[in-house]
């Protein structure tokens, strides 16, 4: 067993996740809705359970559709709650996501879905450490294009999510900039298709973060890059590209630290990759915030 059996796919998935989550994180941060990413990652759980019960599979296509519908449902439910309970503001989001997450936990417990990657370990820690690829027998095999057809499906899901976010950003960029800087004009003008497109991008990134880091640390994948890049960026494109770059570096750096640090320091136990990535991102974000002052 060599490093590429365990690390190659995880690192590639983290690169694509960093690109997608960094960009979507900037969009959410600019709208002051970064906690929406946390809420959506929580709310994804009942959607995945319902998708499994209805369709009988935990395939990533079904998960993506479930995530998209969840994003739109959450946005609708939050706006309804804000209208019904004036003065609630951000707390309306807290109500929606804790209610949906609790529903997901009850469904998982009652339906006993322990064999479909929806048990507490996967919900809390993500599936990064399960991305093992045993097909290549030596490092040079990785250069053959044909062998990549046998790679884990999570790699293609990550690539697909990255493409969705990039295409969405290119198509949606003028609308998005208008929405960010002149919401009074943009919100009634853009209409349902633009909102659905934005929800598509957000759902792709949140689903990817959920798979990699679990429901509770997905917010770390979305927020760290955007918060750090905000300190140094001087324009919108700089912020977007900077956040993606920083997210990739945090993801890969955190993973390398989690897998190699115990070996380097001769520690008796291993480190959890998702938690190390979240910690690294948060510490760097705190350092960047200190520099900002």
């Amino acid at each position, binding site marked *: 067993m060599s490093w590429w059996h365990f690390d190659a796919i995880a690192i590639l998935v983290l690169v694509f996740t960093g690109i997608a989550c960094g960009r979507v994180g900037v969009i959410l*941060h600019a709208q*002051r809705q*970064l*906690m*929406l990413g*946390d809420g959506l990652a929580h709310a994804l759980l009942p959607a995945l359970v319902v998708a499994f019960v209805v369709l009988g599979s935990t395939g990533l296509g079904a998960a993506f559709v479930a995530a998209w519908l969840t994003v739109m449902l959450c946005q609708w439910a939050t706006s309804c*709650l804000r209208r019904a*309970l*004036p*003065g*609630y*503001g*951000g*707390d309306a*989001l*807290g*109500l929606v996501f*804790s*209610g949906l*997450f*609790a*529903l997901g*936990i*009850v469904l998982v*417990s*009652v339906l*006993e879905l322990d064999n479909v990657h929806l048990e*507490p*370990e996967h919900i*809390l*820690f993500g599936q990064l450490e399960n991305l093992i690829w045993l097909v290549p027998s030596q490092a040079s095999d990785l250069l053959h294009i044909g062998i990549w057809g046998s790679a884990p499906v999570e790699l293609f899901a990550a690539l697909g999510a990255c493409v969705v976010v990039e295409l969405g950003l290119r198509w949606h960029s003028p609308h998005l900039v208008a929405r960010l800087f002149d919401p009074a004009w943009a919100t009634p003008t853009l209409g349902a298709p633009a909102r659905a497109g934005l929800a598509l991008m957000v759902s792709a990134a949140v689903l990817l973060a959920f798979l990699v880091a679990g429901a*509770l*640390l997905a*917010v*770390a994948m979305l*927020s*760290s890059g*955007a*918060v750090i890049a*905000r300190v140094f960026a001087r324009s919108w494109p700089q912020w977007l590209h900077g956040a993606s770059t920083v997210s990739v570096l945090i993801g890969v750096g955190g993973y390398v630290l989690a897998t190699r640090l115990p070996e380097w320091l001769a520690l*008796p*136990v*291993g*480190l*959890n990759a*998702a*938690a*190390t*990535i*979240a*910690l690294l*991102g*948060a*510490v760097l*974000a*705190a350092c960047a*915030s*200190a520099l*900002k*002052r």
Partner: protein
Amino acid sequence: MGELVAYEAWHWNVVWVLLAMAIMGSAAAVLGCFSVWMRLGLSADVAAHGTLPGLLLVVALLGGAAPSPLWVLLGGMVGASLTLWFLHWMRRSNSGDAAMAVALSLSFGAGLGTLSWMQQLPGTMLPGLGQLFFGFAAGMPLSEALWLIGVSVVVLVWTVLLAPRLASVIHNSQAAQLLGEGAWLRLVFFALLLALIAMGVRAAGVVMVVGLVLFPAATARCWHWHWRAQLRWAALIGAIVPAVAVLLSAAVPAVPTGASAVCLHALLLTLSLTYCWGTARSAHGTDARRRNDNVERLA
């Protein structure tokens, strides 16, 4: 005979746990009303997540032994306080949502990292993931139930005693500052909130305890517009729902207490909102709008 004794023990334990959860839920609901009026609902969520590293630190300090309720209280409060301090520090140079996201990443990343580390150490007495994160009150020992009752009663009594002053601080913060009351009242309020969250974590779970804080306040808001009446409704709802969840959890052990309580709260809120929507469209629509205006002013 042995079965009878076991049944009796189970029976009395569930009664104590039921009482503990009812009082804890009631105290959480009353604190939740003030949290929402102060716009601190999501901060309470971040603080609840911050209890995890504190609890694990206590287990590590005790050499892997199961901590007593006093240690749970101290460890949870220290973890949550540090998380709230970090959140406050991050808010000085970031928007509120970004500060919360980073604080959540730091506290929960530290918690999950420590947890996965300690799970690999032999001889460490840690509850299961489901119990730790989503709560399992029905399996709570009697000593913990008594501690939960004690802390909840203290928190409830203090909050009720301070309620008029807290309401005046929320309603007119400038006047409160002039009277020199705002700062210490907020400090006491946070201490009460953190104590309750730290003690409630074992019963309701790290992730779910905030649901017991936020939901009853929102439901009570649908039923009455006056703040005192909202507190009474919230206390009543907050007591009944977790007690029902304990019974559910005792009957079906696979269902975590915290998650089932939050589900019941969400159902009750949905029904209450439907009622609200119905009355707002009725002949009392103008009255309802006036109530909302008053409540918004208070919030």
